[in-house]
């Protein structure tokens, strides 16, 4: 399967391990992610101001490029926030032809966007492959590893862009079960990580991170898995501050789910564990999944 791929800025900068592992896993499953010949920032967050079309230009321009320059009428993002922004902007212009017309007239150097592109998230594309196919590719099952899937907000909210049941998504669980892992469900799995509050209200994010990690720990989890670089920053990098504030707090590795898929499929050189703030390798070695 060939599918247009929108990387987004963060996957080319601080979340390289997500891109590298995701592309390797895709290749193993027969998916070729064809990077868009040109792309810009997705817009980062979907603008909710109804009269502010300027902030819809970034996502709509990307969709216009897919429609005019690429062979497939779908585009996949690995980053949850990029997915959410592209998807919501697409819904906006499909449901409001007037706004689309204004945007097209402004972007007079692009071919008019006609609303014919479907933005997808990587999990949805993997879901199409199916867990049976995935099981066949597993070389080193993640036996005994207790994974805590964390969806955050942008994969499941608002409801009309949710990739799965918005209240109880299970797509990540199914994929990781196929990798041989055990799944731990926590009540915070679709709670917000604190998002941009991490800049202006750091302490709120530190508290939120502690709650999520401790709940994962109490439920018996080993590792948090997710697909959002901002969730990753908040849940992984902020743990250092949690540890400084709360004595006795034990750090928990946080990984992109594709890093562990790569490990399970025998592609550990593409897993990028060395880039993680909280090194998961001692734990994986202890479980016999990595050689020390």
């Amino acid at each position, binding site marked *: 399967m060939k599918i247009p791929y929108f990387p987004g*800025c*963060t996957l*080319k*900068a601080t979340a390289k391990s997500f891109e590298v592992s995701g592309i390797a896993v895709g290749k193993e499953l027969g998916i070729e992610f064809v990077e868009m010949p*040109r*792309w*810009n*920032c997705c*817009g980062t967050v979907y603008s909710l101001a109804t009269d502010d079309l*300027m*902030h819809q*230009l*970034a996502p709509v*321009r990307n969709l216009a490029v897919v429609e005019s320059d690429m062979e497939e009428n779908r585009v996949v993002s690995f980053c949850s926030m990029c997915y959410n922004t592209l998807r919501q902007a697409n819904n906006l212009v499909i449901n409001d032809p007037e706004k689309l017309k204004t945007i097209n007239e*402004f*972007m007079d*150097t692009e071919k008019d966007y006609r609303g014919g592109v479907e933005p997808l998230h990587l999990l949805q594309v993997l879901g199409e492959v199916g867990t049976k196919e995935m099981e066949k590719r597993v070389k080193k099952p993640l036996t005994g590893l207790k994974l805590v899937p964390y969806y955050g907000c942008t994969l499941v909210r608002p409801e009309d862009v949710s990739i799965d049941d918005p209240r109880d998504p299970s797509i990540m669980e199914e994929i990781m079960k196929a990798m041989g892992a055990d799944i731990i469900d926590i009540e915070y799995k679709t709670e917000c990580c604190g998002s941009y509050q991490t800049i202006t209200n750091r302490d709120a994010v530190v508290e939120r991170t502690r709650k999520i990690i401790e709940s994962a720990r109490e439920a018996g989890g080993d590792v948090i898995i997710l697909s959002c670089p901002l969730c990753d920053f908040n849940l992984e990098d902020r743990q250092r501050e949690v540890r400084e504030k709360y004595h006795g707090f034990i750090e928990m590795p946080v990984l992109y789910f594709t890093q562990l898929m790569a490990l399970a499929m025998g592609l550990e050189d593409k897993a990028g564990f060395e880039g993680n703030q909280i090194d998961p390798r001692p734990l994986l070695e202890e479980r016999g999944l990595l050689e020390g």
Partner: protein
Amino acid sequence: MSENKEKMITVYIMGKAYEVPFGLTIMKAMEYAGYRFIRGSGCRAGFCGACATVYRNKGEYKFQTALACQATAEDGMYLAQLPFVPANRKEYDIAMINPEKNVLSEYYPEINRCVSCNTCTKSCPQELDVMYYIQAAIRGDYGEVSKLSFDCIQCGLCAARCPAEITHYHVAQLARRIYGKYHLQIPEHLLKRIEDIDAGKFDNEIGKLKKMGMKELKEEYTSRTIEKIQRGEVTQ
């Protein structure tokens, strides 16, 4: 030619009508009308970027940009020369920069205000993909910024038009300096040539040239052989 010589057009310089001969550049048309450029003009050959100009064609809504020394004045044009584009340029010591970090965002945080409107690209007289190099700057891709901005002549039109108030060309210049200093490999053939120069390999030839008279020098220049190289090939 003789017909064109007679043909006159009307241009509006800062709103006032002037009759000027057809076929002049915007800069020469303004000079014909009596304006004298002390600033805002330089090489007059499209390289120095000093003569950024704005105009509107008769009956069109589009706001146009160009280099006044390159664009031809057309009948009905509204002209106004930009003397200078005030720009935000940060001071830095290139030797003190950490090339592994995205310092473009640090020195010029306003690049993150880019909404991908593409106005900069539309305004560029060099026809560069300005928006896409700012997008590459946002993610700290020095190589891509350098590649896309290489032919920039720093005329300032992108910065004058940007709704996010970015000074694109200074961002790109910093990126190219970092890329050149820290990321590009030092070309071996250049090091060898410097060695040759230092060892006096060319002293004899230069000495001969220095002694030549103007006529002789001109002859030498026109009869020189030019080494043909393929595009992308590196000469040794």
